[in-house]
């Protein structure tokens, strides 16, 4: 049993398993199959794999045509290209007709690392979240990524699956049930609620465990489905704690923090802090240094929690 694996690797593995079970699964890539890990599917099912070249707009449209004819296409490329370059195609050719296309985007967030800001998508959740009909899955670890990919097939309609480049530790108990749209409570707590997604779930757990040693009890909720958001769970924990911290490897605008703020602003206004990229692009660097530089570590979560509790006391 590995204890560290990239979510993109889990995606590649899950695709092959799905391909063996379901002939409707087809895969499209835009010249990044080695990086997105669709290459394994291509090797086993060459007839059902389409390399569309470096043409993301065409790839999304072709996926839509396949979906309109009864197939279940997975279209893969890096997050910046899937959501930015091909936004209009995702909007008009996939979401508007509610077609059954699964967009599995890898290399999301700043942990892309050395490739730098041009390749680090810190706005992809925001872009996908405003599209009606879109489901957004953002798994926390490789085990959950596999579950998310399989669950996406059961959703009838477009799904955006947000995957990452680096190896990340396994943080979700494997006996914990996974259901699209249902958040997971990973730690119970009554002082503060940390709501995290993707790679930041690991940092949230580290933060909660450290705070526990100081007598601060933080609830940790994993939101692996950003849309539809588990509103009841979030409101419940917002009510029973003194404040909410969101944590994501994404801009604080329009992503998980934005979604939670919109929800709580309407239903349960509570003190809140958003951990994320603060309205800037990323840059080159080692993933760990970037997380430090952009304020995305357990320490930053703890610091935000202390501030928040001080402000509310």
């Amino acid at each position, binding site marked *: 049993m590995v204890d560290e694996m990239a979510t993109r690797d889990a995606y590649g593995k899950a695709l092959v398993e799905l391909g063996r079970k379901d002939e409707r699964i*087809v895969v499209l890539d835009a010249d990044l199959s080695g990086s997105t890990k669709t290459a394994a599917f291509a090797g086993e099912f060459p*007839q*059902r794999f*389409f390399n*569309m*070249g470096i*043409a993301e*707009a*065409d*790839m*999304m*449209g*072709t*996926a*839509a*045509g*396949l*979906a*309109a*004819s*009864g*197939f279940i*296409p997975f279209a893969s490329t890096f997050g910046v290209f899937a959501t930015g370059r091909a936004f*209009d*195609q995702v*909007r*008009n*050719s996939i979401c*508007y*007709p*509610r077609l059954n296309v699964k967009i599995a985007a890898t290399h999301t967030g700043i942990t892309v690392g050395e490739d730098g800001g041009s390749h680090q998508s810190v706005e992809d959740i925001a872009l996908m979240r405003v599209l009606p009909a879109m489901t957004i899955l953002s798994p926390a670890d490789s085990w959950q990524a596999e579950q998310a990919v399989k669950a996406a097939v059961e959703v009838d309609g477009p799904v955006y699956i947000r995957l990452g480049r680096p190896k990340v530790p396994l943080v979700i108990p494997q006996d914990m049930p996974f259901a699209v749209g249902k958040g997971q409570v990973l730690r119970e707590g009554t002082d503060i609620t940390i709501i995290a997604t993707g790679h930041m779930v690991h940092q949230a757990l580290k933060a909660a465990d450290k705070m526990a040693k100081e007598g601060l009890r933080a609830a940790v909720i994993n939101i692996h489905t950003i849309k539809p958001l588990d509103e009841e769970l979030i409101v419940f924990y917002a009510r029973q704690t003194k404040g909410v911290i969101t944590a994501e490897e994404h801009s604080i605008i329009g992503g998980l923090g934005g979604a939670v703020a919109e929800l709580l602003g309407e239903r349960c206004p509570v003190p809140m802090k958003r951990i994320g990229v603060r309205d800037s692009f990323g840059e080159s660097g080692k993933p760990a240094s970037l997380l430090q530089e952009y304020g995305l570590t357990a320490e930053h979560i703890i610091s935000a929690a202390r501030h928040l509790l001080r402000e509310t006391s």
Partner: protein
Amino acid sequence: MAGELTAVEAGELQQKANQLRKDILTMIARAGSGHPGGSLSIVDILAVLYYKVMRLRPQEPLWPERDRFVLSKGHACPALYAVLADKGFFPREYLARLRQLGSPLQGHPDMRKTPGVDFSTGSLGQGLSAANGMALAARLQEASWRVYVVLGDGEIQEGQVWEAAMSAAHYGLSNLIAFLDYNGLQIDGTVREIMCPEPLAEKWRAFGWHVLEIDGHDHAAILEAVRRSQLENHRPSMIIARTIKGKGVSFMEDQVSWHGKAPSEELLQNALRELEGGRNNGR
């Protein structure tokens, strides 16, 4: 040869096309907005496809074995709605509700709202990619249905069209037959002035397509071009159809001002009288 029409068939088809033109103008006038020019320029292509070529079941719009049609230049949907209504995909009464709130006939084609519409279009340049996906699907299913597409001549200024042109040829999609509605006009002026597409046939040939150039209002020529394209076995076909924007209505023909506005009641009646008079019976 297979592409030929008998004199009787030719007459019937001409009558159908004439009726479609009247329906288009009437529905746009009632709606108070819409795109008459580019709808009238594709009428003859649609008439040949829907009455002579495509395998369809109007009572079963999602019949899996049907031929597919993608109107990539989605703004010309009044032409598509007219022919779908005539084929019986939905009641003719729908035409009177074009572009109204709650109508099954949207301002641009919506596959979820209109029976017989195979793909939602409107944002230009996207239809060919979707058609390619359908053609790949037919191949994967070892099915014999084909995909027909109509593109606009202004639309091909969109870069995605050329991505799709490349991939259709790369994947050898001989079950895909596209038309280019070459009416020469776009919103801001002539296509040549705005962003010249020439040499057009050479471009598509260079991309690896089987290319034919025809008069897009000559039914026999359209049918023959389709039959010839159906014989292709390793490359997609592009039929460049030279057309006249606003075809069939004297005051609309070749007038860019009729790209996207509805005729007044008076002009509608003038147009219907012209079409009634059979100005277009025979070329």
